[in-house]
C-alpha cells in the first residue's frame, strides 16, 4: 500500500473540512478524489503532502507517517498543486534545476533528467524561455515535469486540468496515462471533472462535504445507478415526482427546482409514456433529454446535488439559461 488513511479529520476553527475519511491506495494505482469545490479535496492533498497537519487521524504515505516523518514522505512524493507554484521570473530549465537541487540530485544525473522530463512534456524547445511567457497549459506541463524530475514513487495531482481548454486537457490526460503505464508511478489525483476521473482512475472516491460517500472503480460506482436517466424540465415547481406513477420507474428526484431526473431501464421506451402522462396531468414540459449514467449521475443520486462546472451536461445548459435570464 502506498497510501493508507485512517479516520482523517481536519478542522479549521469550527469548520470541519475533512470529517474522518479512510481509504488506501495500492502501488501503481491511479486513485481519484471526485467531488465539488469545497468538498475537502485540497485539504486532504495538503495533509498527505505534509504541508498541513491533520487535527486527528492517521495518514501513511510511502510507508511513513505524514506527521511524524514528513521528511521521509517528502523524498518519495511529487506534487502538482492546484494553484501554480512556478517561479515566473525564471526559465523552465531553471525552475527544474532548482527543484532538482532541492531534492539533492547531482549535476550529471540532474541534467539528464531535466532533458528527459522536458522532452516527455514536449517543452524541451522552450526550456530557456521565461515561465512568464508560457501559456496555462505549458505551465501545467512544466509542473508535471517538475513533479516527476526526482522520480517519485507517488505523484499527487490537485485538479490537474482546472482552467485549461478542452484540447489541452486531453493532452494532459495523455501524459498522466503515460506516466501510469510507462513509469508505473502511483497517482493520487483530485478533480471535479467526472470524465477525468472516469478516464484516468482505477478507483474513485466520491467526496462531498468532507466525507467519502462512495468508493470503487468507475464501473462499480456507475452500477449503483445502473440504468438510463431521463431529465425533464417542467414549467414550474410542481412536485412531479409524487404524481408520476408509471411502471418501470426506478427513482425520481427533483433537482434545480424545475428539473426532474427519472431513472428507468430503457429511456427510449419510457419517454413517450412519461410525456403522455404529464400531458394528461396538464403539466407543461419545456425540455426532455436522457443519458446513460455517468459518475456525475452517481453523485446526484447520492447527494441530490450536482458537481459544479461539470461541463456540457443537460443541467449545465439549464443553469446557463438561468444565468442568461
Amino acid at each position, binding site marked *: 500500500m502506498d497510501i493508507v488513511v485512517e479516520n482523517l479529520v481536519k478542522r479549521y476553527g469550527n469548520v470541519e473540512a475533512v470529517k474522518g475519511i479512510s481509504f488506501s491506495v495500492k502501488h501503481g494505482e491511479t486513485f481519484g478524489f471526485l467531488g465539488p469545490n469545497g468538498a475537502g479535496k485540497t485539504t486532504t492533498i495538503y495533509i498527505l*503532502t505534509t504541508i498541513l497537519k491533520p487535527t486527528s487521524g492517521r495518514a501513511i504515505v510511502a510507508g511513513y507517517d505524514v506527521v511524524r516523518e514528513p521528511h*521521509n514522505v517528502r523524498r518519495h512524493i511529487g506534487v502538482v498543486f492546484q494553484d501554480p507554484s512556478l517561479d515566473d521570473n525564471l526559465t523552465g530549465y531553471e525552475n527544474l534545476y532548482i527543484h532538482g537541487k532541492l531534492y539533492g540530485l547531482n549535476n550529471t544525473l540532474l541534467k539528464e533528467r531535466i532533458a528527459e522530463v522536458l522532452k516527455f512534456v514536449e517543452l524541451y524547445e522552450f526550456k530557456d524561455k521565461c515561465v512568464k511567457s508560457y501559456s496555462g497549459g505549458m505551465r501545467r506541463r512544466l509542473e508535471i515535469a517538475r513533479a516527476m524530475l526526482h522520480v517519485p514513487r507517488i505523484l499527487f495531482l490537485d485538479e490537474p486540468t482546472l482552467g485549461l481548454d478542452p484540447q489541452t486537457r486531453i493532452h494532459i490526460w495523455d501524459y498522466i496515462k503515460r506516466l501510469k503505464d510507462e513509469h508505473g508511478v502511483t497517482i493520487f489525483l483530485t478533480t471535479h471533472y467526472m470524465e477525468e476521473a472516469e478516464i484516468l482512475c482505477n478507483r474513485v472516491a466520491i467526496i462531498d462535504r468532507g466525507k467519502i460517500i462512495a468508493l470503487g472503480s468507475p464501473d462499480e460506482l456507475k452500477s449503483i445507478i445502473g440504468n438510463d436517466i431521463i431529465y425533464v424540465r417542467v414549467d414550474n415547481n410542481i412536485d412531479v415526482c409524487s404524481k408520476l406513477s408509471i411502471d418501470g420507474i426506478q427513482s425520481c428526484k427533483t433537482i434545480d427546482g424545475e428539473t426532474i431526473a427519472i431513472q428507468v431501464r430503457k429511456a427510449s421506451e419510457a419517454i413517450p409514456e412519461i410525456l403522455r402522462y404529464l400531458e394528461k396531468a396538464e403539466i407543461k414540459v419545456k425540455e426532455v433529454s436522457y443519458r446513460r449514467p455517468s459518475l456525475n449521475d452517481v453523485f446526484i443520486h447520492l447527494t441530490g446535488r450536482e458537481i459544479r462546472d461539470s461541463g456540457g451536461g443537460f443541467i449545465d445548459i439549464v443553469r446557463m439559461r438561468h444565468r442568461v435570464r
Partner: protein
Amino acid sequence: MMESMYIMIYRQLKRFIRAKSRVVGMILNNILWLVFFGLGWAYTLRGPIASALFRGLDYLAFLLPGIFTTSIFQASFMGGISVIWDKQFGFLKEVLVAPTPRSLTILGRAIGDALVSVVNGLIMLSLGFMLTSHLNPLALPIILVIGLMVALGFTSMGIAIASTMRSPEGFQLIVGLLTLPTTLLSGAMFPLSNAPYWMQLAALVLPLTYAVDLIRFHLVGISFLSSVYWWLTPEIELLLLVIISVILIFIAIEMFKRTTIE
C-alpha cells in the same frame, strides 16, 4: 544538504539579474540621491563651521558611508517582501514540500537577498569614489563584510515580518513606518552629536546607527559616536551588530518554520 542553501542563493541572484527594471531603478535612485542631495548639501555646507562640524571632512565624504549603509538597510529590509510574493505566486509551496530543512532554504534566501542589497550599496559607493577623494579604498574588504552582516540582519528582519503576513500592502506599510525614522535617526545625513538628547537616545536604540558609524569609521577614519559616548568604540559597535544580526537570523528561521499555506 547545503546544496539546498546554495540553490536558494542562486535563485535570489538570478531573480535579481532577471528583473532589469529593478536594477536600473536602483542605480538611478542612487545617482539621484548622491547628486541632488549629496552634492547640493556639499556645496551648501562649506567654510570653517561646516569643517568643524564634520571634523575636517567635506559633506560628501561624511554622507557617503552613511548612504552606503542606509541603502543596504532599505534594500535588505524590503527584500523580505519576496517571501510574500512567493506565498502569493505559489513558489513557497514548492519549497515547503521539498525534502530539505526549512532553516537552510530560508538562510539561502536571506544570504541571496543580502548579497543583492550589498551590490546595490556598492554601486552607490563606486559613484562616491568618483566624487570625493576622502574615502579609503583599502577599507573595501572590511566594509563589504560589515555591509553583508548588516544586510543579513535586516533581510532576516524583513523575512520574519513577512512570514507572518499575507498581503504585500501590509508589509510595505510596516516597512515604510520603520524605514524612515530608522534612516533619519541613523546619523547618516547629519552628525547626531548636536541633536537633542532624547533624539540621540532614540538613535542609540536602533542598530542601524552603529552600522553607519562603524562603516564611516572604516571608510573615512572617524567615529562620530565614540567621541560622544566613549564606550561606543568601533569594536563594541561591531560586536553589537554581530549579536543583533545573529539574533535576527534565528528569529527569521523560527518565524519561517511556522509559516503555513492558508
